[in-house]
């Protein structure tokens, strides 16, 4: 449950475009029309070398198992963190590294 999955290229040259594919298993229950209580992620944030490069605030129209794909300009050393924050404050995090040549 709530397993984050991220796909990054293994290597890149500095300045090159890299595709970042992210997914987290989460039902994203709004509580609007079903019997289940609300259970939603609030935010996704990606950092590269400590700096935020991309973020997303989820809302009721965000589909279950949120998938986001975006494109980053690779910079050394290529250390990424990906954090999903639940509305109740819990955080789910994964990391990834792209070897920059």
């Amino acid at each position, binding site marked *: 449950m709530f397993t984050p999955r991220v796909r990054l290229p293994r290597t890149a040259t500095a300045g090159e475009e890299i595709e970042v594919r992210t997914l987290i298993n989460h039902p994203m229950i709004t509580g609007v029309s079903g019997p289940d209580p609300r259970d939603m992620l609030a935010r996704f944030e990606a950092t590269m070398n400590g700096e935020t490069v991309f973020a997303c605030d989820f809302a*009721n*129209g965000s*589909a*279950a198992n949120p998938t986001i794909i975006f494109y980053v300009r690779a*910079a050394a050393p290529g250390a990424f963190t990906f954090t999903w924050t639940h509305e109740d404050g819990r955080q789910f995090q994964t990391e990834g590294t792209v070897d920059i040549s």
Partner: protein
Amino acid sequence: MQRRHFLASTAGAACLALVPFAAGAEQAGIDALPDDVAEARAAILDGRVPQEGGIEIDAPSLAENGAQVPVTLRVDSPMTAADHVIAIHILATRNPAPGIGHFHLTPHLTRAEVFTRLRLAEEQSFLVLAELSDGRVRQAAARVMVTQGGCRT
């Protein structure tokens, strides 16, 4: 004949059709926005008048499953420190709540392009608003027919 029609429409849904949006927002049915959508849009615009165009929306014209509608948004931008997209907002016009997702972009991105999946309760248009670093806002809309509504949760 009915079956043929069904097959044709599902085949169309299988591949992502490029929805023409340049014809304008009113064609996509955003002239008469429900109050909550108009409010959400006004909160983003903050008094600014959006320009039509400059946003490409890749979305299926017909979605079998409203709970998972794949969409690619592409805003025309060089994504430099001086000229980039700072945010892309997606608003539903006929969902129980208008918010779909709010993306925050930086010049670390090579292009202002995002793939995500939407939840659409019924056939409707969704609005895309892109905020640029110079303060301008762009707007586009696309219409998706939904076979099965996505609001079970």
